[in-house]
């Protein structure tokens, strides 16, 4: 990708989509950071289900609205519920540090507070990464025509995101995976005791 990783930078990607990221200094073996990557939502594609708050209407997040709202994702929290079916603003288990639109996908990356929330990794391992998806939380959404069967969102502000079972999400094309320290696929390791430094290995065994 082009551009420098400076705080609040907005750059362009090879695919032409907008990229927004905030700089987080790398700390090798940080015990409370596990990187993650996911597809938060799709743009210009109707949701499979009506989101909560949309009064039964499926929605389409327009590309230009998503691009304008990307900066509002920076620093927003990722949360979860113990039943993996929605949002809980009191269970903020991670943070978004990078967002980009790639084709029809709005992709995000960030860090999970793994030590503070060991149940998140456990839950993902129990259900399997392929079963996990993401859900956005919006505020002040401007709807083009509220009488339309599918609402077009012309302007939004992201206020957070959630990790949940994909079947519970309004967009079934979302995803969520935990990564290794180098950003590659995560390798499950034996459970460590609290207080021990993270020793997650990559697929390359580094």
């Amino acid at each position, binding site marked *: 990708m082009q551009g420098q990783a400076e705080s609040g930078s907005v750059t362009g990607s090879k695919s032409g989509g907008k990229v927004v990221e905030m700089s987080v200094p790398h700390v090798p073996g940080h015990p409370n950071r596990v990187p993650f990557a996911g597809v938060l939502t799709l743009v210009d594609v109707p949701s499979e289900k009506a989101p909560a708050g949309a009064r039964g209407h499926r929605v389409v997040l327009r590309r230009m609205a998503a691009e304008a709202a990307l900066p509002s994702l920076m620093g927003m929290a990722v949360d979860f519920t113990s039943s993996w079916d929605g949002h809980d603003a009191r269970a903020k288990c991670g943070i978004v540090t990078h967002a980009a639109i790639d084709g029809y996908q709005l992709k995000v990356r960030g860090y999970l507070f793994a030590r503070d929330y060991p149940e998140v990794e456990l839950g993902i391992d129990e259900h399997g990464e392929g079963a996990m998806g993401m859900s956005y939380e919006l*505020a002040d959404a401007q709807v083009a025509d509220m009488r339309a069967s599918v609402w077009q969102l012309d302007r939004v502000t992201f206020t957070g995101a959630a990790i949940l079972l994909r079947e519970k999400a309004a967009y079934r094309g979302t995803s969520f995976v935990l990564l290794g320290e180098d950003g590659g696929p995560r390798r499950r390791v*034996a459970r460590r005791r609290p207080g021990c430094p993270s020793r997650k290995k990559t697929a390359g065994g580094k």
Partner: protein
Amino acid sequence: MQEMMESLESLEATASRLALTASNLEEMAGGLEQQWHAQQAEMGGRVAQMVAVDGASLSASGAFEARLAEVERALQELREAVELQAAAVAVPVQTLPSQGRRTLPASTTNLLAKHGVGDGGAVEQGAVDAALVSLPVEQRIAIKSQLLRAGLLT
């Protein structure tokens, strides 16, 4: 000469009617534009909050209430575990395994003991998985979290 005068008068009259018609059309266009903007304002709207969760699934109240009760129970067990751990906070983490019984709620200790797991010391994840296999996912996660926080899960 008279014919020319009449033609000119006729042209002037036509020009006046055209100007009047143009003025009327302009006024009508302005009115239509105002109507269009008003309709747009009426059709469009703002939504204070929206979350991309299947809204319909949240209204399955029966199953939801049952799950909520389960989660609240797990949460209470976690709170008890945290309180016990806070009471033993002066003890270094490395010595906690020998005091495992005191950092876990009695209900968790009893459950594990029923399955022959955990005699106060560290327990293997495989043994815990086998012991908890009959429990709901949320309860398994809650108990494993208690063991992790107590430093008893290997």
